[in-house]
């Protein structure tokens, strides 16, 4: 199941920054530190996650989605609370 | 608005007739303009209407009767002198350059020469070198005279009255191949046309074709040909060869960045060279390529048709030059 969430996060990120194709992502480091993602990119990334998972993600949760590890953990938690 | 289909020759005739009826001081003078009706039949019927006094056949004395025309203008008349073709004007160059163009300035502004000279010009009828010259640039070089080239029916009809109203000498060049051309002349009560500005005959954005007189239709044909492969030409009809309407030219260059000048005169020291120099002075930073010139080959125009065509600007050469400037 973790792989599935990881793919969703990577896909959302690539849709915003296609040039990151094939880049190594350090799981516990924020995307902004690794890849110069700015606020507009981040917003579109979050929108991508929301569309892919059907979850509505409030602004206050944004900070949890800033790294691969954090985002996967968040998705697993939200899905679990929905009885998946 | 109604319009009539008439020939270029009819337009010239109507302009002459209107001028003669409108002002007693106006009279027409030249070789065979009277009983013969004009070498190109532009004044046929005028002598029957206005009589020998105002439609004056002259002996073959170009220097003589052009000089006399200048004198009559000084004396208060408004002569229209017809030199059969620019080829014979060489015999009257002294009178035109040293008298007509110079008297006002040289007399400290006292004397005025309100004279109009009309001449046929250009090649295209296999008349060989001595009868096929295009020497408009010789006259456009001289300060003190205005030089115009009516390329359309409207201009052939409308330029004469403006020229006659001008206190200074005006030379009107009518390309010999245009007389038979037919076209629409919109009905109006005032046909007068300005004689100092150029006209955009075709708007376009990719390249500007600049030309005048007998070459206008060739440039338009080249533009149609180029349109087939997506090149959108702007065609400028200079109409006035002195003064030159720089503003219209430079505005077009600012848009298209590329220019081809079509001039039936010879390339060296010609009118196209003058226009090209003005463009490099005023629109240099707009240029995306050298200004091209399509002129007559540097040869006396030969008699055989295929050599005359080879020697003079043609639509295919204009299109080829445009493609070169467009780097395509």
């Amino acid at each position, binding site marked *: 199941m973790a792989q599935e969430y990881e793919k969703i996060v990577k896909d959302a990120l690539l849709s915003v920054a296609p040039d990151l194709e094939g880049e190594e992502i350090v799981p516990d480091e924020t995307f902004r530190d690794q890849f*110069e993602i700015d606020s507009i990119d981040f917003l579109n990334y979050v*929108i991508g996650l929301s569309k892919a998972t059907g979850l509505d993600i409030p602004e206050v949760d944004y900070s949890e989605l800033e790294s691969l590890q954090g985002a996967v953990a968040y998705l697993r938690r939200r899905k679990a609370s929905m009885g998946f | 608005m109604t319009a009539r289909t008439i020939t270029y020759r009819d337009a010239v005739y109507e302009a002459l007739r209107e001028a003669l009826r409108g002002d007693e001081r106006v009279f027409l003078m030249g070789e065979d303009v009277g009983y013969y009706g004009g070498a190109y039949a532009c004044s046929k019927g005028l002598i029957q209407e206005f009589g020998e006094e105002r439609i004056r056949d002259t002996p073959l004395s170009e220097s003589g009767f052009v000089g006399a025309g200048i004198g009559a203008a000084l004396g208060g008349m408004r002569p229209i002198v017809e030199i059969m073709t620019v080829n014979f004007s060489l015999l009257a160059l002294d009178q035109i350059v040293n008298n007509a163009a110079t008297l006002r300035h040289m007399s400290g502004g006292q004397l005025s020469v309100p004279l109009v000279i009309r001449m046929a010009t250009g090649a295209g009828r296999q008349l060989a070198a001595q009868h096929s010259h295009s020497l408009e640039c010789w006259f456009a070089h001289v300060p003190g005279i205005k030089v115009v080239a009516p390329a359309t029916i409207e201009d052939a009809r409308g330029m004469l009255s403006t020229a006659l109203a001008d206190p200074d000498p005006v030379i009107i060049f009518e390309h010999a191949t245009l007389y*038979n051309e037919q076209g629409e002349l919109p009905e109006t009560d005032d046909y007068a046309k300005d004689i100092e500005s150029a006209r955009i005959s075709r708007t376009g954005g990719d390249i500007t074709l600049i030309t005048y007189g007998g070459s206008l239709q060739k440039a338009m044909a080249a533009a149609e040909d180029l349109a087939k492969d997506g*090149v959108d030409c702007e065609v400028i009809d200079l109409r006035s060869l002195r003064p030159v309407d720089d503003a219209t030219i430079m505005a077009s260059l600012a848009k298209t*960045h590329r220019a081809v000048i079509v001039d039936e005169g010879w390339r060296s020291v010609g009118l196209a060279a003058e226009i090209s120099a003005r463009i490099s002075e005023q629109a240099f930073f707009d240029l995306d390529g050298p200004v091209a010139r399509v002129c007559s080959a540097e040869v006396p125009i030969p008699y055989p*048709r295929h050599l005359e065509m080879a020697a003079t600007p043609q639509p295919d050469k204009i299109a080829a030059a445009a493609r070169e400037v467009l780097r395509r």
Partner: protein
Amino acid sequence: MSEFRMPSLGADMESGRLVEWLKSPGTEVERGDIIAVVDTQKGAIEIEVFEDGVLEEILAEPGEEIPVGRTLAYIRAPGEPAREQRAAEKPKPESEAETPHTPSTAKPTPSATAYPPRTPGVHMTPAARRLIAEHQVDPSTLKVGPDGVIGLSEVKAAIGAAPTPLEARPKSKARGIDPGEMRRAIAAAMMRANHEIPHYYVTLTIDMTRMMNWLAARNAERAIEDRLLYAAPLLRAVALSFAKFPDLNGTLENGAFVPADRVNIGMAIAVRGCGLITPAILDADRHDIDTLMTKLNDLVKRARGGGLRSSELSMGTATLTNLGDRTADGLMPIIFPPQVAIVGCGQISERPWVVEGEVVARQLMEITFAGDHRASDGRRGAQFLSHLASLLGKPEGL
């Protein structure tokens, strides 16, 4: 049987009107006889026949306008039997009669502008040089055309402007922009601007707390794709301020300030790995915040995808550069020539701030206004910032 055709009677005669026949069918004719009269522009001309025989049949009627070369009548040679039945005669096409067997001029004409080859090396056209300067493109980064020339098409390809219909669409890279090229182009432009423009700087720290709370409340009621970033209201406030200060919104052209009649705000957008490009949002003062958000989003995508329009790149009247959150507090921006002003915003961060005499934590943003001293002075820049601050202070008013 020989055909008698409308003769060419002059160098520019294309046709003639038959006035009358002077011989009737069946009568004898001799070489040199006048057979008919034709009217031309010059008047009526008698036309002669050039062989002996009998005028067999007349094809044209008086009054008809007949092109040169068309058959008018048949002449039966003496002693030739009369033809009972005559095949329908197709009139000979004029063109063939008009220019008998002159050689075709199909040979390729020598190049109309045949000049000796250019001096070797790369040649850049004047129009190309001007576009490069306007868009701060580094010339050394440009690709040279196959003919050794860098022209408008080459420059337009490099700055990603919509190519004019003429140029073949340039082979687009993944994102259409060569990062190395852009880096060098920006460096060259910045160097020139910094060197030539006498900058002055004024800074102001602005309390953005009310703005951020207002945004959070808005976003809470909105679906995720409609949520706003503070960049949108910030852009609107900056645009409205430039509208209020026309002497700061325009360009410097050969030493004289020319005020712009529109407010087009150039947005500094980072293109990963390449650096900054500043396409403008046109008439930014006339759009509401939601529209500006959509335009911003679209602009960022196109800037990175190489799809910017040349108008966007050349029509900016002033520029806004926003570092964004978790970056730095403040910056000293460089003006983009030929503009005369730029607004630089640092990150929004929580810092101590005095409100009604007490020190409290507030979300603060440091804004720096850089102006061209040839067009305005520090005092004017400071007035601009205080007006901007008042707008940002009342987000609901934007």
